[in-house]
């Protein structure tokens, strides 16, 4: 799974939570919680979905690293390790 696949998965899961948002239009370095108007329950739903879909365990202490789109992709890629590029 490369970065593009991860980005696609992240966007799909975010879109499930905030269906009316055009993710192509948001700042990938901006705070997702602001851009998508998501609350702590939505964020937990997102983390849970990523955990199920990609098998990545995301401890609560690491949540701050996932609050931007770029940050989430980088974090997940690092956790998945350099498997297939």
């Amino acid at each position: 799974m490369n970065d593009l696949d991860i980005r696609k998965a992240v966007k799909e899961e975010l879109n499930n939570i905030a269906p009316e948002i055009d993710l192509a239009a948001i700042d990938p370095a901006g705070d997702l919680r602001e851009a998508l108007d998501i609350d702590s329950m939505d964020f937990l739903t997102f983390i849970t979905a990523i955990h199920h879909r990609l098998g990545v365990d995301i401890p609560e202490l690491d949540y701050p690293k996932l609050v931007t789109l770029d940050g989430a992709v980088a974090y997940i890629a690092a956790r998945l390790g350099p498997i297939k590029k």
Partner: protein
Amino acid sequence: MPSLGADMEAGTLVEWLVKPGDRVKRGDIVAVVETQKGAIEIEIFEAGKIERILVGLNTKVPVGTPLALIQTEGGETAAPPAPPSMPAPVAPPSPPSPSPAPPPPVASACVARARVSPAARRFAETHGIDLSRVTGSGPAGAIVLADVERPPGVTVAPPDRKPAPGLDLDAMRTAIAAAMARSKREIPHYYLEHHVDVTASEQWLVRINAGRAPDHRLLIGALMIRSVALAARRFPAFNGFYREGKFEPSSAVHVGVAIAIRGGGLAAPALHDADRIPLDELMARMRDLVQRTRAGRIRSSEISDPTITVTSLGERGVETLYGIIYPPQVAIAGFGRIVTRPWVIDGAIGPRSLVTITLSADHRVSDGHAGALFLAEIGRLLQEPDKL
């Protein structure tokens, strides 16, 4: 047709989940009704066998109209599900009322929604799939489970996607306006405010959640609901209903959880027995309730029976909110955003996590003195999260 709120006069039957001959038990969801509050799942209060369906799809009927006949275990035939507070059901329907058909967009949505198997609908809900964009392969084009179980990749919604099909935000706004106007007209509110150190609760959650997969993690919102529920059990003047000039305390604590809907809406369905169920179950139910509410799928009992409401601003926003009581309830507790503030502990100043909790309560039922004790109890309970 059950009453799902003091202001509801009629509802439109949009989906039957049972057919004649089906066995049902108390609590089963048998139908879906479209109301101002969105699509509501109707639970049944009798066990037995469905004898006959009395109200057809997309028919609008007044509150109190029998929807179906069931053969109860005892053998007699009863017309459920009319909650006890209902006026006696009108004699079985005059020919399905030539009801004013809902406006066209709603009507077509209802027709489309009717052709979805319950399993497919459940799957779609839990996975956030928009059924209006799924092509059905079942009989008469019905959407069946296989149609929605495709890889998640194909479910991406285009940016113009509307809120969940069961949600009509304009109707919801009308319902909020009616309930809140009535509240401000009839209920003499008084307001109290309390600043509570929730550092202990936060630290406890960090410890608990560290060893848990995301599915089982707790949010501080669950502790807030629990603390209010336990305090409400101890202070019954804040838990129950004010009806026909008198207060009826409730022995059960069903906490209405105020849930913001994307696009501008609000609902406060009940989390049942929030004082008694284990905390993990409370959290699981809260997740389920939030997801279903945002998908436009609230159950009838969840709409009609909250005994007290909790509203919380979450991580963003401001520090204080003053709730408006949802009639016929008599109290609402409000939690602002948690902030880090200098605080004095044991004579020294240090940074602590603080939340402002407010209580809006009905002066016809209680006074500020009792309200202050109730609010203080909520704050005290949050100091010992391991006992919640």
